[in-house]
């Protein structure tokens, strides 16, 4: 099971690299989203994939699942959510101000005409 998840994570990270190497801003943003999801899968796998009871709460639980990767995962999801949202806002601003969403044209010092 772990091997399978790691392979899936690898595929996702590969896809994200492909997307991030493209020229369109929106594709790049989708790429970062997929990258973080792939890495989150890795993070979840690192705690070991197993079924078990709730830790800490009940003394009688023998086999418990590791809560820490899930807590970290949730935090990273929240952060990624905020980042992606802000990045989308900025991407639209870039498109409005600079008139392009092609990364090739985002070079040098742009001319300020306002």
């Amino acid at each position: 099971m772990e091997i399978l998840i790691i392979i899936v994570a690898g595929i996702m990270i590969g896809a994200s690299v492909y997307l991030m190497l493209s020229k369109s801003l929106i594709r790049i943003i989708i790429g970062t989203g997929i990258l973080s999801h792939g890495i989150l899968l890795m993070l979840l796998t690192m705690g070991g994939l197993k079924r078990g009871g709730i830790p800490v709460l009940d003394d009688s639980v023998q086999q418990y699942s590791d809560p820490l990767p899930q807590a970290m995962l949730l935090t990273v999801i929240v952060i990624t959510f905020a980042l992606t949202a802000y990045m989308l806002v900025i991407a639209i601003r870039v498109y409005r101000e600079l008139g392009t969403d092609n990364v090739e044209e985002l070079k040098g010092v742009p001319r300020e005409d306002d």
Partner: protein
Amino acid sequence: MKSTLKKLGYNRVHKQMNDVFLKYTAKVVFLVIITFSINLFFSGHYTPGGGFVGGLLAAGAIILLLLAYDLKTLNRMIRIDNKRMITAGLAACLIVPILLMFFGNPFFTHQHMYLQLPVFGEVPLHTAVLFDVGVYIIVAATTLLIITLLASEQFMSDSEGADRE
């Protein structure tokens, strides 16, 4: 929907589309979603749910209204300033841990107890809920702020208060 209608030959659809079904359903579904989000929020202590998911769902409900009506109508329906809400949420997140700090505990030490109520039976009470209220508000307000910014025409470079878990 507007552009599809235009393609079909309806030229004079500049004004707001008057989709009665969507508008009516949106109002009902809005209530359902909000209720579900509050349910998720309160179940978040021992089972899946919590402030973040609840807040996202609440924002989703309001976005449904935004789709059914338009931004102007939405602002008239719900007169809440998102930036104020973010501030309030951040404050709510911090006030409880700070107050608890003055009782001689380290930061973020929460207190909890179980309360026996007549109808509900045993109800857990936890000060972390107050923190979660803050998270709920921040997430809902931030999502709404960003989406309304993207939706509105003349949006300015504006900063979200950034939700912090």
